[in-house]
């Protein structure tokens, strides 16, 4: 089956089997290897993408379901290799150690940091579907809050 969607701003058409998972198609057929599969069961959140503006877990979505949708992976947030304000905030706050979960956190983080208003509590609750086993979450939450200030033009 042919499936058409926009990925990181570019129109793509891919030939897929109906039983292929979106995460596998993005990684293997479109080469977006920053996207990781951690649990393969919709639990860990490392494969999170933005689909029509909302964070979803691509390891439990069929590629054919994405027909006509607008997708962003972590690759879509940097500007020609320059890190986004959130990615900078992750570096400044040491929001990663091994880095395996980072692509998932960046995608959810970009979604949160670009909201008009967020509270620390909302960020913590919203990150509960993404799992980090080494950094801990404080630095990640700090990075999202800091990026939110940058995106909303607020200076501390």
């Amino acid at each position: 089956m042919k499936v058409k969607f926009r990925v990181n701003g570019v129109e793509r058409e891919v030939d897929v089997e109906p039983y292929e998972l979106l995460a596998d198609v993005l990684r293997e057929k479109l080469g977006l290897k920053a996207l990781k599969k951690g649990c393969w069961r919709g639990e860990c959140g490392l494969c999170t993408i933005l689909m029509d503006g909302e964070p979803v877990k691509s390891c439990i979505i069929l590629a054919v379901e994405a027909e006509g949708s607008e997708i962003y992976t972590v690759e879509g947030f940097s500007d020609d290799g320059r890190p986004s304000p959130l990615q900078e905030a992750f570096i400044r706050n040491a929001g990663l150690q091994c880095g395996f979960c980072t692509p998932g956190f960046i995608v959810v983080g970009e979604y949160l940091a670009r909201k008009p208003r967020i509270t620390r509590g909302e960020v913590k609750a919203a990150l509960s579907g993404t799992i980090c086993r080494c950094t801990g979450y404080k630095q990640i939450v700090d990075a999202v809050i800091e990026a939110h200030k940058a995106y909303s033009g607020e200076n501390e």
Partner: protein
Amino acid sequence: MSSPYATLPEFDYVRPTSLDEALKILDEHGENAKVLAGGVGLVTFMLERLVSPKIVVDIKRIPELRRIEYTEGKGLILGSAARISEITRYMDSNPEVKDKYKALYEALSRIADLQIRNRATIGGNICEALPFMDSYAPLALFDARLKIASVSREREASIIDFVKGPGFLDLAPNELLVSVELPEPPPGSKSGFSKIVPAIEYSVASVALLLANPVDPSSREVRIAVSAATPTPVRVREAEKVFSEDGDIVELLDKALDKMASAIKDSLIEDPYASAEYRLEMLKIQAYTLFKRLLDSFLEEELG
């Protein structure tokens, strides 16, 4: 939970755009077809090889099944493929609807996590048929009517009749859950939902409770629904009846909780995650706490 399977078994995929088309496909393929809505259940079950359908029927592009509508006097209609996050967002932007169906809102807004709520649907939550599904207690509380259709007929069922047991629904292979209709709750009522979620991620005891006219025994109404602690959702009518008696409301509450305990004590789930005794205690504590919370908010309103 992990299994050696990294990929899905092979199947065909169809994406009907009308309800009639979907029903025809289900009628033709019967047991070989599985309905795909949000996929958070079906796709993981297929990965685990718990189900291996020949054909997957994606119902998300059927506009009728995506409805979220509240009509004054008629109530709230949710199409079975309406996403959990769409429903809570609708309620956030319609605060009067959120107030009327607060127990449903509290249950839906705490399902799994952000990403899952963006995919999972109300129909998927209902049809997963596991005891801890978060929609069950609130749907029992609000006397929700489930609309089910096949090519040859349409029918209605309550959540209590629809969920027959863990993994079992009153749903034929050629039938589809079309929508869930929640009638108007009693005027001026307040409701809430509470669950106990240990490290296994699933509730072991969930309670939904509704309270209306607390100070007047003749018009007072209390509804109590439980799930997760029992194999299927239960409306605890034996406990609800207590509140039509005269007397101090807190004493009536104690009596009602005893009635609840005796009504469900023989059907409690006992497993490695939680004992029957623990589940019962958690149901009682949550029902008590919810009742007090709702009662307090009535009293606060009265005192201004």
